[in-house]
């Protein structure tokens, strides 16, 4: 549909249409596999093939992806990329790359976003947001401008607020419960590309 060269087969595009949370627009400048591929390609032109009709196996390392302008200023950029990579190390294949921006698009359902937000904030990948995670989150967020005491206090308060089961850390249920009430979670937890 107006693309000069075929990066994807129609079948692939169709699959993306169904899977991605955001409706795909095939024209330039909008959310579409071709455009995402363009972005992906420009991160490492020599690595990423132009032809994706045969699903080439190609992964870009975290360091490259993190440098995208959309992510560059994000304090959690490493975590975001890691959360969406299958190996947990931040190496993203193109599909995972698409997945990332699909989940982070504004059309993704809240539950899905909550799941990934939880992953992002779960620094130590233990499926709980413990104090340590919170500390890290805070320090990233504030660029370590808060004193340790303040950080401690905030962590304790945050856990106290959201911890339903009293285990002193936030499980996903706690987190979801909390985040589903946040007024601006949906509007802020999204990246435009």
């Amino acid at each position: 549909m107006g693309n000069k060269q075929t990066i994807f087969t129609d079948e692939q595009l169709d699959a993306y249409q169904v899977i991605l949370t955001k409706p795909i627009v095939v024209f330039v400048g909008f959310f579409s596999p071709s455009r995402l591929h363009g972005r992906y390609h420009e991160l490492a032109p020599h690595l990423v093939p132009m032809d994706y009709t045969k699903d080439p196996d190609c992964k870009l390392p975290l360091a490259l992806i993190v440098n995208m302008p959309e992510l560059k200023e994000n304090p959690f950029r490493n975590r975001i990329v890691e959360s969406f990579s299958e190996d947990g190390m931040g190496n993203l294949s193109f599909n995972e790359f698409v997945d990332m921006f699909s989940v982070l698009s504004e059309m993704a359902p809240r539950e899905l976003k909550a799941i990934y937000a939880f992953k992002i904030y779960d620094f130590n990948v233990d499926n709980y947001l413990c104090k340590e995670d919170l500390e890290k989150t805070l320090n990233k967020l504030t660029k370590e401008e808060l004193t340790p005491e303040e950080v401690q206090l905030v962590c304790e308060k945050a856990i106290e607020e959201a911890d339903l089961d009293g285990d002193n850390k936030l499980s996903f249920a706690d987190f979801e419960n909390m985040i589903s009430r946040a007024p601006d979670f949906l509007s802020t937890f999204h990246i435009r590309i």
Partner: protein
Amino acid sequence: MSTVSESLVGSSRSLSAAKRHKSVRKNSRRIYSAYQDHDQGSSDEEDKVDERVDSDDPEEMFQNIQYQKEIIANIRTRPWPMRRKLKVLKHAREIVLKYEGRLTRTRGYQTAGADMLKKMSRMLYNIVVVFIPWEVRIKKIESHFGSGVASYFIFLRWLFGINIVLTIMTGAFIVLPELLAGAPFGTTRSKTIPKEHLASAQDLDTIWSLGGYLQYSVLFYGYYGRVRKIGSAGYRLPLAYFLVGMAVFAYSFIILLRKMAKNSRLSLASASDENFTFCWRVFCAWDYLIGNPEAAESKGAAIVNNIREAIVEEQEKKKDTSLAVLISLRLLANILVLMSLAGSIYIIYFVVDRSQKLEQEKPELTLWEKNEVSVVVSLITMIAPSAFELVAQLEMYHPRTSLRFQLARVLVLYLGNLYSLIIALLDKVNSMSSTIPVSPANWSDTSSYLATIAQPAASSLSTLVSEISHRNSTITTTATPLDVTNRSRGSSDTFSNQTAQFDKNTRSPQDQCWETYVGQEMLKLSIIDMIFTVASILLIDFIRGLVVRYLSDCCCWDLESKFPEYGEFKIAENVLHLIYNQGMIWMGAFFSPCLPAFNVLKLIGLMYLRSWAVLTCNVPHQQVFKASRSNNFYLAMLLFMLFLCMLPTIFAIVRYRPSQHCGPFSGQEKIYDIISETVASDFPLWFSKVMSYVTSPVVVLPALLLLFMLIYYLQAIARSLKFTNNQLMMQLQTERTDDKKKVFQMAAARLQAPGEEVVEQKSDEHESDITSQDPSIQTPSPQRNGSVTNLHTPGQRSNSIRTITQSASRGELNRAVAGSSRSPAAIPKQRLEQVPNRHTPSLGGPSGSCRSKSYYHKVCNHQASYSDNIQSDPLYRKTLRAIHPVEPAGIITAHSYGGRHGHATRYVIVNEHEPRKKLLRSATRIPRHYLMEEEPAEILELYPCNIKRYTPRTPHQQPHPHRSHLSQQNLNEDEEKEGKRRRRVLLEKAYRPCSLSDLHQPAHFYIGDRVESHMSVAKDIHVGRGRYRSQEEDEEEEGDIRWRGLKSHSRSQDSVRGAEPQLVRTRRHLNSPGRNWQSPTRSRQIKSKTGPNLEQPLTESDSASLASSSDQQNSGTDQYIQVIHNKERYLKSDTRQGKLSKKRFKETLDLDSLEANDLVCSNV
């Protein structure tokens, strides 16, 4: 969906089990399996898909297809990695394709058609999306400045959309028909520029003040003809004019309310006033859209401020510094604001008045004098908000409240401006229209005479001149008020007094058009406002930005951070300005049909200018009003504005007589008469009859009553709904506080269901807990083995989970209690002394069990699985590690370390012993032998335990409560006999189904119960362990301590028993853990207070062991506390234990602590 699939799968379950096993393995590789609810399910789904491929039954096929379709439909909401989604989708599609055609031909066609349709709609949607204006631009802004700033532009775009519709409405139904079919320019009086003005009609000056050609154009009300039907089609322009004027308001109302309803539906979740202040400030603080370093920096600073603020608020909530000063300051501030509001209103009124007077006195007005009103209004709207901001600093409110105040004040100011302007205008209109009847007879004669003259009769006019001028001389005094209006028309360039007066008189009927006048003023205001906006953007933002950037080097202070800085983008005020602007449009739209069109242009310009300014020279405001929440706030203000702007228009329509010589309603008494007139003349007779009935009081009053009743009813419903809402919320809250357990359970189920690994772990721990051994510590391998068996068993886990756990907890109450009571008795001696004793019972246990045949049998099974597992163990470990790759020194590391610690050796031993079951005894001996030596003893001891663990685990035992009870009593009597007893118990329990592993549920919670129930069996192990632990304590690291804690937790759990009381207690303990710790008696008191339920089971339970059991409970609760506050508490407990080691319950404490630690692990 699941039921269908289940039934379908039923036949080929064995196959699916195998597959599931495989898929589980596959899953275990996955890192994030933990909360992927659908993961497990989906793998099953895949399997099912495979299975069903062969079936030919159409019904089945149909269901299959439906099922696949559901997968396809839901796939985008599933948190799978992309590759998996693609795979599943492909698979599902293939199946759908393959079978759909086979099913029936028509169905195939149907789906093909539906597919086509879907594709088409998607295409259409794509196209529509492309035409969303400024999408890319807003996106860019959003990515630079975050959602807050973008919300302004989105709001602007939305307003733009509304204005487009309004423009289309007015354009299509008023302007175009008038242009196409109406009388052409110059044909009628109201469409002709008076001769004397013709010369100046094209002057910039005139045009600027919207006179001349502009005045006599479709821009304004006065131009529209009064002919009822125009064109060959007979278009009823006046009717259309009126209806469209009303439709503008109606449409605005509807669209606004709809938007608001949608927004409130979206933000329904946030409507609750629940407080997650800190959480939100941490987790929702960052705006992921931000992509600009500066914005990121200021956002970071804002977050820091925010958090600090919250901390300060939290710390000194009640601390008010010098309330009196604050109150007086706020009073002062409010007085200042009120004064400035009143001042601005007065100024506007004064200016309008002055312009009136000026027009009277001076024949020629300067440019300033002509535009005075709108300039002053615009200036006020520009300056006053900043003044308010300064004033707001006096008040020292919380930033958010001060922002609210600021917004409210600005809104009031804008409204005041608009209102005073419109009131002044209407005042003028009033005087204008009233002059006619008030004027003396001869004057009114003239006007009426003129009115009667055919309007285009310009030739006759000249003959009239002399006469008119003559008359004029007589009535100049009375005509003065009229002059004002005449002059305001922009006819400032009159040549002589005489001719001027002539002008006035000839034009007077025409100029009497107050509607045009109002329209002109509104349009003028809008234009001036636009100019001021542009100027302020250029001056305040752009020039300032330039100066700051390029002069900062040659200035003695830092321009960028000190005084001028860069202009901030004040979202709230800018949005308010938009609202104000829209208010002007609404106010003037009726009198100037092209105002929406002009507004569209203005908004377009504003969009580009603002976005350019934002991107080049603005920094985002520090305190961003929360975008999503403010949306409805903005809309509410807009609604408010719409209503208030509609009022004057409606008032003018209803109150004033339309101008007699211009506009579509000329000659009517009231503007709305057009409706009744149309009904009377153009509709059939019956319709007008019906209308007259309908509008008669007989109908109207009941209708009004009905409306009131409806409103009342709806309000009542709303109130009751609110009430139920509140109640539900309360219920939720109580449930949450009371029933935390449930929540936790659910969470656990959630976590477990998807990720097999997690399930494995939990179930393992669970089982191990049953045996009262700490598997995770001592033998990770068996643990995992257990999980493996779990994998084999086909399980609908989530279903079985809850029921089982509950039955366990309730049914085994008595037994468990007995067991718990027993345990203290079992540990009567001091630790060190007991060391040898400890070992013997524990060792004896396994040996005894070995003797029992059934046990052997069981063991065989288990052993088999063991060996398997052992081989597979490395795999598991890997998965474990994969799950927690980044794990810090926390819980899990401890776990894994502990596990790995003795691993290799253990395995070896297990291998040796388990295949040859009979050697178990020898195995038991081996530990003993090791016992003599200090360190290695640890490992050896563990072995027997492991072995045993399996045996007890098997007995999950609801069926044999009595026996176990007996056995427990026995236990109480003598430790030495445990071996035999154990044998017995084992016998009973041996035939428990191996599917026990399915009961992996929220293991930690009920673990305790099971432990107790199996106390008889596991008691010695416990004891041994406990002692062992105590021995080891010092050497052990944190991890160990944790383990202990776990145990204690489970223990405490069994003692607690009831879910609710438990929850209550947890809270309590959380709050005051230290206290509880201080003395067992204390904790006991607390317990008795908190949970009478707790006591109940105790009393019911073995009376003989009552005292001890209570002790146990106390200890249990203590331990529970411990669990909650992990590390420090444990450490404390340890020290305490050291002191109180002589006491029994302390000993049990130790045990308990072990269990509690297990809990922690299981959580992992």
